[in-house]
């Protein structure tokens, strides 16, 4: 079983590198956000599989938190693109974009 965990871990590692290449190449900013979001999902999976590989399933708690923070991070970066701020205050010149 350990063998299969390590094979899965290697596949996730290669995918991480491919996603990283897209984050570096990406012509638009949205390509980069998409790639970083995928890297987050892959990191969650890697943490889970590594917990089983090492025989320490407590790692799953970390993966749970990582999944939440990954989502909040993506949404806040997108909001920052749109509004130029993370708080409730929206600069007047941006207000017509917000609908």
């Amino acid at each position, binding site marked *: 079983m350990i063998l299969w965990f390590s094979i899965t871990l290697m596949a996730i590692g290669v995918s991480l590198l491919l*996603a990283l290449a897209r984050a570096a190449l990406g012509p638009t900013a949205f390509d980069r956000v998409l790639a970083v979001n995928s890297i987050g999902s*892959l990191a969650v999976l890697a943490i889970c599989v590594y917990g*089983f590989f090492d025989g320490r399933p407590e790692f799953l708690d970390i993966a*749970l938190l990582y999944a939440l923070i990954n989502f909040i991070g993506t949404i806040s970066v*997108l909001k920052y693109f749109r509004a130029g701020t993370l708080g409730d205050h929206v600069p007047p010149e941006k207000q017509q974009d917000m609908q």
Partner: protein
Amino acid sequence: MMVENIVTIIAIFSLSAGALGVLFGALGLLRLGDVYQRMHGAGIIDTGGAGLILFGLLLASPEWTVSLRLVLIGLLLGLTSPTATHAIARAAHFAGVKPLIKTSPDAPIEKGANE
């Protein structure tokens, strides 16, 4: 003994399929044409790849508390990843990124949305 073997085989099969799915998803992220098409590649990582890997781990999990955590991670990914993908698509759409459109397999690719 027999049942355990079958469960292990299914777990290994599911893990390998998930690993392949993750690889193909990342390949799609790299190969496809524009932002909107690459989202489908990212979708494979988040749904097929993650789902199959988590299902394989679920079958290999030693305790029920571990299984519960895996199910929670699966639910969380299933709820948040489409929302994040939709947020990226919407943000790109409103920022004026036009998708490549191809109405039939033989037609040339044209730039611009059919709105």
